[in-house]
């Protein structure tokens, strides 16, 4: 199996994500506090909780997009703010937005996104990954002409092309049909099997291969 992880530069030690005493407040109101967790290679973290409890905020803190006012997040033992560039190299974030430019083609979008991550894809790789996600043959289409579901699948294709070891996914199964959900679950399972890590939130309970989830429940 052609695993992206094995090409990652620093595979000396198994990667670990840990956070300690994380807290979050929004608009003066405390959302959650004293959240700890350690996630090791090959495992996935399922973050659950009621609407508005701060799941998206937690994910954005893990990415380094939102500042951590309370607590600390570490990747391979080093705090993420001390190693921003190498952490970001190992990270792929899929939020609610697809990050696709409507006026550009699928292929142009994917090429740009992978270039940002420091790698290059050729036409065949793009075609193959699009095929895998059920949007094959659309690489020259403008994103504007795709349906919502198709756009989401193209966004997932970016995941598949990324060499990142840590995937942070915010409600990735939303607005996907059964086939799409299975595709994504298999993709994540492969990623975990190759030694990657995944953190995701979802309102649906989706089994990922045979790997049990590490569950983190957020409450006020």
């Amino acid at each position: 199996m052609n695993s992206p992880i094995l090409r990652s530069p620093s595979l000396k030690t198994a990667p670990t994500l840990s956070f300690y005493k994380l807290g979050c407040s929004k608009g003066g109101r405390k959302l959650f506090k004293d959240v700890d967790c350690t996630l090791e290679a090959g495992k996935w973290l399922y973050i659950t909780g009621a609407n508005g409890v701060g799941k998206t905020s937690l994910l954005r803190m893990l990415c380094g997009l939102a500042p951590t006012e309370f607590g600390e997040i570490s990747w391979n033992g080093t705090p993420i703010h001390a190693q921003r560039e190498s952490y970001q190299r190992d990270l792929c974030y899929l939020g609610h937005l697809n990050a696709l430019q409507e006026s550009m083609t699928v292929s142009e979008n994917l090429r740009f996104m992978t270039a940002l991550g420091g790698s290059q894809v050729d036409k065949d790789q793009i075609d193959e990954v699009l095929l895998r996600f059920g949007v094959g043959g659309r690489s020259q289409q403008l994103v504007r002409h795709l349906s919502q579901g198709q756009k989401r699948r193209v966004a997932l294709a970016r995941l598949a092309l990324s060499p990142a070891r840590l995937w942070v996914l915010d409600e990735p199964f939303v607005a996907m049909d059964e086939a799409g959900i299975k595709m994504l679950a298999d993709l994540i399972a492969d990623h975990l099997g190759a030694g990657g890590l995944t953190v995701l939130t979802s309102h649906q309970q989706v089994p990922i291969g045979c790997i049990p989830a590490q569950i983190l429940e957020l409450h006020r």
Partner: protein
Amino acid sequence: MKQQASEKVGLTAVLLATLRREVSLAMRQKGEVLTPLVFFVVIASLFPLGVGPESALLLRMAPGVLWVSALLAAMLSLQRLFATDYADGSLEQMALSSTPLGLLVAAKALSHFLLSGLPLVLMAPVLGLQFGLDSRSLGILMLSLLLGTPTLSLIGSIGAALTLGVRGAGVLLSLLVLPLYIPVLIFGAGAVEADAAGLGANGHLSLLAALLVLSLFFAPLATTAALRISLE
């Protein structure tokens, strides 16, 4: 079987890819690029309508009027710099990519210059003729705009980053950025006047170049900080 992107890509390649992306996006939405240019012509034409067609007066006013019009036109297209990427999530991805955000910001500012500053430089002589500037003054005008408009793009990117997703961003952007543009305006218009007065434009032009170098180093830093704040 997973496909994987291979081959490392150098930073210059990423910068070129960003430039190419900005330019091709602009080409597909030509209206957004052309409108500020038309605006430039309209504003510059308003002044003679306001003060009368007396040629000596227009000649005296020309550098200042053309520079102010260029300022305003350059500012119109600043909002576009980050807004669409912010709205569709691309900006987030840029902030999370392994490419330093400062470099991406500089690439975006450069593309703004190519798409709005450079056309202004090329159109200014045509308007300058309307005001009666001679060919030597036109040359100095073009040179001053060539040195000054990249600085406008760089300083403007700070304002664009600060006002992302904010109420009334357009007007607020102008209020924040115009005072910072004043030195560029003074040296730019002053270059043409100084040359016409026989004092030589070298001092002004070197100051413009100095401002460009300063903003090339510092503006991306400020813009990156502002972007991360807007993305929180």
